[in-house]
């Protein structure tokens, strides 16, 4: 078990002047589940690969526990990694895949078999130990990749979008399984995803990256309640926060932060809007409303089966606690 810290870690790619990861400072607690999230090309995978030792660190340092691992090869870092496409060895059986690290580490055969069986039991892989990866379903392969990581009992798990190759339903199931497994094992975990729902549901804390720089690192609740800037405000939450330019400020209101009134003209401060699209999800309903002042339609969440229909004229009033204010020039959150 160990902490992980990035100290001004910077990574350049050949032929690109702008760093892929720029002076990243990040502290991960012992046993914490930290999610790195951001749009593609934001540097989240590069950050993870720097920690794993698959990518060099041009400036700054990476520490695991109190060891400076910046220049250590992957094998000396005591980490395990789950790859996006699992990277299972296709010519080895599930048991051999899971036990490959132990075999290299010259763990005696009986001990190895016991550890592999233990990991397989944890992941419900026992019936498949003699199969090759090609004979497994996507979900099973994903579990083998997990098994390969947990059998090592490493100090840190690195996970690079491990769920992105699963179908939607399996992804939701596996998400919960991974989160609960991590909590049970208590291993510090850095998890990369582009899916903000995954980030919010799995992480103890979530670090949002954009263009190689860290935007904000906070608990899911913190990110949602107090986004540090316009990017985080727009990125976290689904559907996204409505951002309304108001002179030097930008007003941010989440879809659930509106009060709807039918009395448009009689309510002071109400934004007059016309319902353009109604998305009925059963439990919720989303209204996409056109307004004369704004180009972007406003998103409004209402309880499911609400009576609104396309073409209805409604008034929208931000709820008192739901208004976020940002500086239009810098994009930073304004106090209050």
């Amino acid at each position, binding site marked *: 078990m160990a902490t992980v810290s990035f100290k001004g870690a910077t990574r350049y790619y050949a032929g690109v002047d702008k760093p892929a990861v720029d002076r990243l400072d990040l502290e991960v607690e012992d046993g914490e589940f930290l999610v790195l999230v951001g749009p593609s090309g934001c540097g989240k995978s590069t950050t993870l690969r720097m920690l794993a030792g*698959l990518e060099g660190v041009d400036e700054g340092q990476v520490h695991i526990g109190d060891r400076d691992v910046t220049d250590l090869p992957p094998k000396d870092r005591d980490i395990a990694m789950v790859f996006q496409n699992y990277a299972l060895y296709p*010519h080895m059986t599930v048991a051999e895949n899971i036990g490959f690290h132990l075999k290299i580490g010259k763990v005696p055969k009986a001990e190895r078999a016991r550890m592999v069986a233990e990991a397989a039991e944890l992941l419900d892989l026992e019936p498949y130990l003699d199969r090759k990866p090609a004979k497994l379903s996507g979900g099973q392969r994903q579990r083998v990749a997990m098994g390969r990581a947990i059998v090592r009992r490493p100090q840190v798990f690195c996970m690079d979008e491990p769920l992105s190759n699963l179908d939607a339903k399996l992804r939701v199931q596996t998400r919960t399984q991974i989160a609960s497994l991590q909590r049970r094992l208590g291993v510090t975990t850095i998890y990369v995803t582009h899916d903000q729902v995954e980030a919010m549901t799995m992480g103890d804390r979530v670090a949002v990256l954009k263009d190689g720089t860290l935007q904000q690192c906070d608990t899911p609740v913190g990110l949602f309640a107090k986004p540090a800037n316009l990017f985080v405000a727009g990125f976290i939450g689904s559907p996204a926060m409505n951002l309304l330019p108001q002179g030097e400020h930008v007003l941010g209101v989440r879809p659930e932060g509106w009060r709807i009134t039918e009395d448009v003209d009689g309510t002071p401060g109400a934004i007059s809007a016309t319902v353009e699209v109604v998305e009925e999800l059963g439990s919720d309903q989303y209204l996409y409303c056109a307004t004369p002042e704004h180009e972007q339609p406003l998103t409004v969440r209402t309880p499911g089966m609400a009576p609104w229909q396309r073409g209805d004229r409604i008034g929208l009033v931000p709820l008192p606690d739901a208004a976020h204010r940002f500086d239009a020039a810098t994009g930073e959150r304004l106090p209050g």
Partner: protein
Amino acid sequence: MSTVDTAGRKAPRKPKPPPAARGISPLRVLGKVIVWLFTAFNVFVLYWLISASFKTPVEIFTQPFQLPRQWFVLGKPFRNFVYAWSQAGFGEAFLTTVLLVGASAIVTVAIAAPAAYALTRLGVRGSGPMTNFFAIGMGVPFQTVIIPLFVGMAKLNLTNSLIGLFLVYVALSLPFTVFLLTGFFRSLPDEMEEAAAIDGASPFRTFTSIMLPLARGGLITALTLNAIGLWNETLLSIVFLQDNAKFTLARALFTFYGAASYQSEYGGLIAGVTIVVLPMLVLYIVLARRIITGLTLGAGK
């Protein structure tokens, strides 16, 4: 949920092809005709070769397309093969060739595989130019360097020696094999190596335990192509081997050709050709499926 009623419905014997594949275009017909003519011609030549190897010289010339008869009537159907095998020294030459070609092909691949791996995967400085250097080697026809090669080998006392020919074979096969295998190693996914690195495997271990098994299809392809090429190689064996006892099959066939046509022993000669041709045909038929599955072996998700 409703269950589909399959009673009274019948699946078509042949499912309908996609719309684009239907209809007869003149080009498609022409292509099919050419492919089938080409195939028919090859099958015909093979038939002629095998049937003639069981015929007497008279039959070969008077009844070139019929099935063989006379040797069967005489009760000695394999007489031509026996003649070629024992009289022309094909028996010994066969063993020599199997050993020489086998050793050359295996050693070539054993040298080329690590070289190709290093050139494509280790990110060595100058690996691009070095790969090109190997590729240039393919562009030099060995016939043009055969005289200096002979002179050089003679100075080393390596002419009229199977070891010498083995060295020449390996050296001349390397460019193509390295080129073939670089393409193959390049196509393997990076994650395999990264996973191996994180699992703690050394570069050597990664190569032997992960990359070589993944490249199995490529290795078998390289082995087969080299074996076929070297098996049929005649010019170098004529130049480098003078001693009957060291003849390879192609070399022995060349000598036998002189003797057999002088004695009008055409049946034996064709049986000799068959002995040279058939093993490679069989090798290819046996390995073709493995080559193809090997080439398409998936490693990712």
